[in-house]
């Protein structure tokens, strides 16, 4: 027991002695009515590093002057007047400064709750008793719980937001479909009573214009649905971005001219060639341009720039239009989002155009962005598309009526981990007169390709599955393209795979395959593709 005044009449000793030592999980100290420490338990000695011998006999405020600065002396005076006081961790953080090493957090200030009570004997206050509890674990647990609740709350709000957006989208869709239909049906009925129509040509124009607008809308919807379901196929070829932008510009010119909008083009001289789908990228350029023209007031300006930037081609479309509010900027490329979804909005459309832009650009391995200084300060959209240095992909779609190809004299190496698939491919290609050899792994294929011996299998074309154990088909081709032998580096390669989404296709082409043919494979198609590749060498 701590060295205290043990004189038989010591009221402090009697009052607290019984349970004092039992509390080894919290701090307890007792003062007399002069706030001189009379007891200091082992827990406090261990946690503060101050032994009972050092503390006993001293005023608590001499030992911890900060207690006075923090106004805690009032609590002790109140305790001496008979009041019990709770000191919550949230308000006070701690009573005595104690540092502890906490697992997973390291050195931290010990979070404490405390209470200060009068110590009474025979109805008279003779001192104070202070209890200190270490609540560090509790505080950390509560903080984590609070963070989890905040996260799930955010997820719930996101789900609500998405469902609200879908509702808004459906409302917009219904409106956008009805509007042109109204014009088409209205004018068609009018044309049945020719006397009611002053200019049939004008009526026909209106019908055509509205039907075209509806067609555009349906196409956007179908494109979006194809992208979502991974069914959008890119027809990849070598294209000049400047040419693609120019074709889109040709389409948009009449609308710009009608609004007296000046269009300025800055096409950096030199090549802006990339591998991509010309129609889809034209759709990207068209969407950005028509968006700018739509939101730029009559007499405004739209500037289009195509330039090389590091390994990319960058297309920038900026306008002097109404701009985009800062809070809407992060959502510009989201599906179904429109800055103004209200019935009173001034611009039509489904809000799919920019979402399509992003999806198509991302399918090409590029990125999109938007900047606006806010409402009425114009908007700048940009798109970057990577310039591929990999082997140039050639015309992807084989001739629609493949001429029966002969592959005699062509040595083909097949890599597929599935034995049935290997057998099928070998049989298929041997039918066309080729010599085919099949292996089940990338490592085995590399061994054959890198074989320098005299009786080696001289591979002309490599066909590989993408999903392979250990080393996949993408990695295999990257290794092939870095091989020591030039013959191997330039080896024509075809990916034959069940990974058939547009993203998989882009990945295969980027890795260096000339072709990506989804399974199930048509033998004629495969043979004619091989024949093309061999002929092109």
């Amino acid at each position, binding site marked *: 027991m701590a060295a205290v005044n043990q004189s038989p009449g010591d009221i402090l000793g009697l009052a607290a002695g019984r349970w004092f030592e039992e509390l080894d999980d919290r701090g307890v100290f007792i003062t007399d009515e002069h706030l001189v420490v009379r007891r200091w338990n082992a827990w406090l000695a261990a946690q503060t590093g101050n032994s009972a011998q050092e503390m006993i006999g001293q005023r608590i405020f001499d030992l911890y002057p900060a207690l006075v600065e923090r*106004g805690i002396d009032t609590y002790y005076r*109140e305790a001496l*007047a*008979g*009041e*019990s*006081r*709770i*000191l*919550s*961790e*949230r*308000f*006070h953080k701690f009573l005595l400064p104690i540092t502890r090493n906490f697992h997973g957090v390291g050195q931290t200030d010990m979070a404490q*709750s405390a*209470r200060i*009570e*009068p110590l*009474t004997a025979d*109805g008279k*206050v003779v001192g104070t008793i202070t209890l200190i509890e270490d*609540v560090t674990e*509790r*505080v950390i647990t*509560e903080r984590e*719980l*609070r963070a989890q*609740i*905040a996260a799930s709350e955010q997820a719930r709000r996101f789900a609500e937001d998405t469902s609200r957006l879908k509702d808004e989208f459906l409302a917009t869709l219904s409106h956008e479909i009805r509007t042109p239909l109204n014009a088409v049906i209205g004018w068609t009925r009018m044309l049945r009573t020719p006397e009611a129509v002053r200019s049939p040509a004008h009526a026909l124009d209106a019908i055509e214009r509205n039907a075209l607008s509806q067609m555009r809308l349906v196409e956007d919807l179908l494109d979006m649905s194809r992208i979502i379901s991974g069914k959008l196929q890119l027809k990849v070829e070598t294209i000049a971005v400047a040419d693609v932008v120019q074709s889109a510009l040709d389409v948009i010119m009449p609308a710009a001219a009608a609004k007296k909008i000046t269009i300025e083009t800055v096409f950096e001289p030199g090549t802006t060639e990339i591998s991509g789908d010309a129609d889809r990228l034209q759709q990207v350029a068209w969407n950005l341009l028509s968006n700018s023209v739509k939101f730029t007031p009559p007499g405004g300006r739209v500037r289009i720039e195509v330039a090389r930037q590091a390994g990319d081609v960058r297309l920038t479309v900026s306008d002097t239009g109404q701009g985009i509010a800062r809070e809407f900027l992060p959502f510009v490329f989201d599906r179904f989002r429109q800055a103004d979804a209200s019935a009173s909005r001034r611009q039509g459309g489904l809000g799919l155009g920019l979402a399509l832009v992003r999806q198509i650009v991302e399918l090409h391995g590029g990125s999109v962005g938007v900047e606006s200084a806010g409402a009425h300060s114009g908007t700048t959209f940009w798109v970057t598309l990577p310039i591929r240095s990999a082997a140039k992909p050639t015309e992807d779609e084989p001739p629609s009526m493949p001429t029966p190809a002969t592959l005699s004299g062509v040595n083909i190496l097949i890599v597929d981990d599935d034995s049935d698939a290997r057998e099928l491919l070998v049989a298929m290609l041997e039918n066309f007169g080729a010599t085919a050899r099949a292996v089940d792994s990338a490592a085995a294929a590399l061994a054959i390709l890198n074989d320098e011996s005299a009786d080696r299998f001289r591979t002309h074309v490599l066909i590989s599955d993408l999903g392979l154990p250990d080393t996949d088909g993408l990695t295999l081709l990257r290794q092939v393209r870095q091989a020591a032998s030039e013959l191997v580096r330039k080896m024509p390669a075809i990916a034959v795979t069940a990974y058939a989404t547009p993203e998989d296709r882009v990945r295969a082409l980027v890795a260096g395959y000339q072709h990506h043919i989804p399974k199930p494979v048509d033998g004629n198609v495969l043979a004619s593709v091989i024949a093309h590749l061999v002929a092109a060498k």
Partner: protein
Amino acid sequence: MKLTAVQQDALIELLNIGFGRAAASLSQLTGHRVLLAVPEVSVHPVENLSSMLSTVISGDVASVHQIFAGPVAGDALLILDQSGAAMLNELLTNEPSLPLSLDASAREVLTEVGNILLNACLGTFGNLLKVQVSFSVPHLSLEKLGLILSSLRVNQVGMQYALVVHAGFRLRDAEVHGYLVVVLSVPSLDRLLRAVEVWEQTQH
């Protein structure tokens, strides 16, 4: 038993001193300006307390309970409904509350708030009566109002009265309402009211 107009005014004036002291402590602790609205006070027999309070507070409540002893003795409680309690914690600590049953830190904050308010008011009574009142450690419970009130009447003999004080906390453009309940024996209440009347006369 009904308070006379003089008793009523004097009690309100006295409680306001206690409220002022409590509001100052809370402002200092939180760094926000905390105000406590002018108290409204009434007296009821303890057996009517439940029906009286259930018209203004219902369901699960958070209550901070302290027993005071000395020449004047009884029970003192701060009662808040649970949403009010959670809101008060949020306003005071600037942290979102978890459900109170999971949030020991929030319960502790409410205990300290009750502690401050009850001590301030009972201390004012003690000073007035020139007696030393000692207080037990405050205890917070989350229970149905009826359960809390019935626990007050265990081991009580003789007629008991309750002083019910409406306490409105105002801070950061929001308001939370609670009730301070002081349960006293008839002699204690008599003694208090007489002292209050005398005090009122010395004020004018």
